[in-house]
């Protein structure tokens, strides 16, 4: 093969290789972004659940105190 023949062939092969490599890389990156997004939403849900649990405890204590006051009347 002469240099003249190699000129477009090299360009095409390298461009295709870049395209394939980019497609694989972007696919992997999209997967990682998706996992990271789910992890963020999970952390937020856990925080909300903890807050609700604390609030539930406080309301329960209030309920018990009010029932005790009613019982004393």
């Amino acid at each position: 093969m002469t240099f003249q023949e190699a000129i477009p062939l090299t360009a095409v092969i390298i461009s295709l290789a870049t395209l394939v490599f980019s497609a694989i890389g972007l696919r992997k990156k999209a997967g990682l972004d998706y996992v990271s997004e789910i992890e963020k939403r999970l952390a937020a849900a856990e925080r909300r659940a903890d807050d609700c649990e604390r609030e539930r405890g406080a309301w329960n204590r209030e309920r018990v105190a009010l029932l005790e006051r009613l019982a004393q009347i």
Partner: protein
Amino acid sequence: MLGRLLHAIMRLLQVGGPLIILYAVALHLSWGVLLLLNESAGWATAVHSVLVWIGSEYATAAVMFAVAIAAVAGLHRRLAHSLWGVGLMLPQQAVLFMSAVGAIQAMALSSFADGVVRPNPFIIADQLPAVLIAILHTIGILCYHVFSVARRA
């Protein structure tokens, strides 16, 4: 230590990626204008290897302008981290590699495209930028679209 060094190099390339692409854009626009102004620009080694495959100076200049415009479009923020963005930069990469192979041919034959014969080290020193920019352009594409951190809207 090595990890930090690699991280620093990656950060540098992420910033430098668009600059390399803009350098190639400026180069192709300049070559296009020079080809339109004077046919003799077609005898420059890096331009000649593209010219022999396309045919005429006007068509080559049009190709140079087209690949430069496509590459600039590929830098648009909305196309970042997408195959469309990569695809718009690939024609420019192909033209750069055509120039690079022409430069390697000149190095191997110790002769510029216009037939001027020079010692091998002279031609290597003269034509090395054409080869390096093609390699750096590829790294630039990958750094800009694949390896950089995605910005969320």
